[in-house]
């Protein structure tokens, strides 16, 4: 487990206090020294365990309110998609932006796959793209004018 007392979260706290949107929070945290320190020095599994512990209870102060987001962004910087996916599956009632931030971070680390198929006679250039994303949704995009 990450020892909160050894990390300077003052910058992250400030970011959280100013954030109107989760996007602002994510963007700022990516360059926050505390996030970079955790990403560099802490194994993914340990970060994951810290998140699970942190989101289990309602935060009692600003440090506790920002800590899960700090850990999430740190986890995303480690490029370990399995751990990030597991983090995204964690349910919490105490952190309103948690699910959104986790899903966006996972999506960014696992970009959509695009496969092109030839469908003669359907579109002008005979091709459609099938895109899948992390939510397993499938989007079919026609290329050119439909006949």
């Amino acid at each position, binding site marked *: 487990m990450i020892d909160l007392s050894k990390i300077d979260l003052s910058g992250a706290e400030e970011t959280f*206090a100013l954030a109107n949107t989760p996007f602002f929070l994510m963007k700022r945290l990516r360059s926050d020294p505390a996030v970079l320190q955790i990403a560099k020095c802490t194994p993914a599994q340990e970060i994951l365990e810290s998140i699970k512990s942190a989101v289990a209870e309602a935060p009692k102060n600003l440090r506790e309110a920002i800590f899960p987001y700090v850990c999430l962004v740190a986890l995303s910087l480690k490029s370990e998609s399995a751990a990030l996916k597991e983090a995204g599956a964690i349910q919490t009632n105490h952190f309103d932006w948690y699910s959104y931030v986790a899903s966006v971070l996972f999506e960014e680390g696992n970009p959509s796959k695009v496969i092109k198929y030839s469908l003669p006679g359907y579109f002008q250039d005979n091709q459609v793209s099938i895109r899948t994303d992390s939510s397993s949704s499938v989007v079919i995009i026609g290329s050119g004018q439909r006949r």
Partner: protein
Amino acid sequence: MNRAIPTHGMLALVAKYRREYPDATHRDVGPCSTYNCHGLTFASRRTWLPGTGEIQRILEDDDYNRIEAKDAGVGDVVVYSLQGIIEHTGIIVECLPFNDKKVLSKWGNLHEVVHKLADCPWRDYDKFYYRVVR
């Protein structure tokens, strides 16, 4: 959505911003998470409005028209945006020379501030101006 978060530590941040932005008028309103800047600008301080999609919808549904900086006056809205994401909004309360303005806005979970356009944490963002037309 329950946006309530602990206020412990918030007062210290308000004090910090008072020091960092001495030319601004820091109102004794907040910190609180009942409403954010968008809630102040568009919802009479009643609620926390989340993000870009909602703000763009309000701008469209409530007949806000984009106007030039030189035309923006008291009562118009300023939108601070970065890469198409709306991050901050406020209401113009005074026009200053050289197209500068004074803006009333709320700084996230913190307090309300009357500040010059660039005298705030969103100083480097693109600024767009809107006026409601009724």
